[in-house]
């Protein structure tokens, strides 16, 4: 039996406490009114102007120069608009350049007339923009919370899928690690409860939560100025009751599978026959069928729908690869931690080697899917699709390309060597990089749609990450203490103990 060391427990509490401080600070610091935003933008005004000049096209640069000649009173709005109208100018002058984002058309209108009478138009435009930034900044702490919450919850879902695959495939090498996997999936219940609360918060727009724009009733109201035909056409699927209902069904079924498989696994320890194991085998097969469908739908619902105009058909697989590799990495790291404390003495370097092979392989698989999605959209260059990558490359350049280095190039080079896959420090280092890289991946999936170019990895983001990390560690290691570390009743346990490659 494992005992939760008081040091680790204290560490997890400290993480949670620091996290709560960061989250609360994030919510308190979010601007409340348009005046707050105006002040914020005025402070960062200089930086933004120079930034916009750097990223814009030639035509736009000329515009920026022109803007500096404008009256001091309107300089603010011109500069601010300069950032947004980047796309619009690009569309006008260069058809080969990437297409405009959804808002670009209105901006381009404003831009033209703006040249004629700057003063008359700027006020209206200015107010509109400030309101937009206000919503983005109010979304920021919610998005930070959402990214960290879904990331850690999906890690446990990824481990659950891996665990089910081990059962369904009747794998002989892994039963020695089953209790570790079961502990990690122990986080699924608390994780999904918090996550569901966040979904409800988004649906009810608690505290200016506008992560999902399609939840705003105005966008499907034909009489309203914000009416959006594309979202309205999707409202048969994207509506709050159906959305929450699907989420509830998915989370409940996953949790039920986790509950029953854990129960059977514990019962198998004391059993004289293999009936519990057989039950788990059938459960796992059934779960995997449900999972493959529900996982894809959950990725549309919880991640892709933050960009309700955009869609990609392999998005579900891409998200799956991301949290699957994170889950396997967490199994490897938890196992190595337990081994370093003297537990799990039957786990040998061959088991670690196999886990590291999965880390390597699924990292490559993730890259394959990421690139398949990227290349098709990049090559076809269809405006409604390519905006997804345009916003990321323009406003999220470092996390977007940095994530590729972290999730592909680093694991590729470090884990390709057979001997390295058996070395604890290499696996831990590669695992840390992979986990960080996939957090950034989820960050890139959510943030561009919810906070746009107002992103920053600051207090709310780090706070949310620390809080869920602390909670994750606490729940996982508490679950570990609940049962013996070796699933001794599993019919394959002897093979697993002597697994050697």
């Amino acid at each position, binding site marked *: 039996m494992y005992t939760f060391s008081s040091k680790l427990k204290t560490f997890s509490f400290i993480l949670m406490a620091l996290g709560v401080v960061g989250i609360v600070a994030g919510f308190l610091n979010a601007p409340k009114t348009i005046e707050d935003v105006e002040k914020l933008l005025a402070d960062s005004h200089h930086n933004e102007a120079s930034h916009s000049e750097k990223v814009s096209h030639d035509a736009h640069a000329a515009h920026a120069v022109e803007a500096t000649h404008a009256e001091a009173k309107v300089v603010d709005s011109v500069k601010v608009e300069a950032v947004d109208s980047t796309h619009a100018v690009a569309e006008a002058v260069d*058809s*080969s350049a990437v297409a405009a984002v959804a808002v670009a058309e209105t901006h381009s209108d404003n831009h033209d007339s703006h040249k004629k009478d700057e003063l008359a138009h700027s006020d209206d435009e200015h107010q509109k923009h400030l309101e937009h930034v206000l919503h983005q900044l109010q979304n920021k702490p919610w998005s930070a919370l959402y990214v960290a919450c879904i990331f850690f919850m999906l890690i446990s879902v990824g481990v659950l899928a891996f665990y089910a695959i081990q059962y369904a495939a009747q794998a002989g090498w892994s039963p020695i690690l089953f209790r570790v996997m079961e502990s990690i999936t122990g986080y699924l219940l608390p994780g999904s409860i918090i996550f569901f609360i966040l979904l409800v918060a988004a649906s009810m727009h608690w505290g200016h939560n506008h992560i999902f724009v399609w939840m705003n009733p105005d966008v499907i109201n034909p009489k309203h100025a914000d009416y959006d035909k594309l979202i309205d056409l999707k409202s048969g699927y994207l509506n709050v009751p159906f959305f929450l209902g699907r989420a509830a069904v998915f989370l409940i079924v996953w949790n039920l599978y986790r509950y029953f498989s854990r129960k059977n696994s514990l019962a198998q320890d004391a059993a004289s026959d293999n009936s519990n194991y057989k039950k788990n085998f059938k459960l796992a097969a059934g779960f995997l069928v449900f999972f493959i469908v529900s996982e894809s739908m959950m990725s549309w619902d919880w991640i892709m729908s933050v960009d309700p105009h955009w869609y990609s058909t392999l998005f579900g697989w891409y998200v799956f690869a991301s949290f699957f590799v994170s889950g396997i990495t967490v199994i490897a790291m938890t196992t190595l931690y337990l081994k370093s404390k003297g537990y799990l003495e039957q786990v040998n370097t061959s088991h670690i080697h196999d886990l590291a092979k999965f880390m390597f392989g699924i990292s490559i698989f993730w890259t394959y899917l990421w690139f398949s999605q990227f290349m098709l959209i990049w*090559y076809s*260059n269809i405006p409604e699709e390519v905006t997804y990558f345009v916003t990321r490359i323009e406003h999220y350049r470092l996390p977007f390309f940095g994530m590729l280095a972290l999730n592909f190039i680093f694991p590729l080079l470090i884990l390709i060597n*057979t001997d390295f896959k058996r070395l604890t420090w290499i696996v831990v280092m590669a695992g840390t990089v992979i986990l960080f890289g996939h957090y950034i991946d989820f960050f890139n999936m959510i943030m561009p749609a919810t906070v746009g170019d107002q992103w920053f990895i600051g207090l709310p983001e780090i706070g949310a990450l620390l809080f869920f990390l602390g909670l994750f560690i606490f729940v996982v290691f508490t679950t570990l203490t609940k049962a013996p570390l070796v699933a001794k009743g599993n019919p394959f346990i002897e093979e697993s103990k002597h697994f*050697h490659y």
Partner: protein
Amino acid sequence: MSNKVIHAIYNDDDVLMDAVKQTRAAHHHIEEIYTPFPVHGLDKAMGLAPTRIAIAAFLYGITGLSIYTALMNFIMINDWPQDIGGKPSFSYIDNMPAFVPIMFEGTVFFAAHLMVITFYMRSKLWPFKKAENPDVRTTDDHFLMEVGVHGNEEELVSFFTSTGAVEVKVIEKH
């Protein structure tokens, strides 16, 4: 010094593995083992040096990647730039995503083919080569261990019989 060798024949890979370990423990020199299929862990049990083919494969892959990168750069950018799908080919890096599948395939092509060729050359296998295995049964369901005879022949024969060999022969090697 005689050129005599012992051919100990086994009919089970587990028995063979145990026999190899015992033979090594008794300090007899194993010259070669012929098996109908690759026996897992046999190389380690025999004490063979680890393979370096992975290093070769990595280098071949790098070679393939470089060649195909240069190839695409010449064909698509330098020699005959075209405007494909509104993406004029004036710079390699701007059009790189389109070349990635080719670069990848080139890497795999080079690594795989050169690895196989290296393996055949290193194993001294080439077309029309005469088979080396001394007993045809090693292509079916038997395993043969060839051990050099140094010292007492009788003792060796009884030793191999005790390791579970179904047949032990002493052969004069040319």
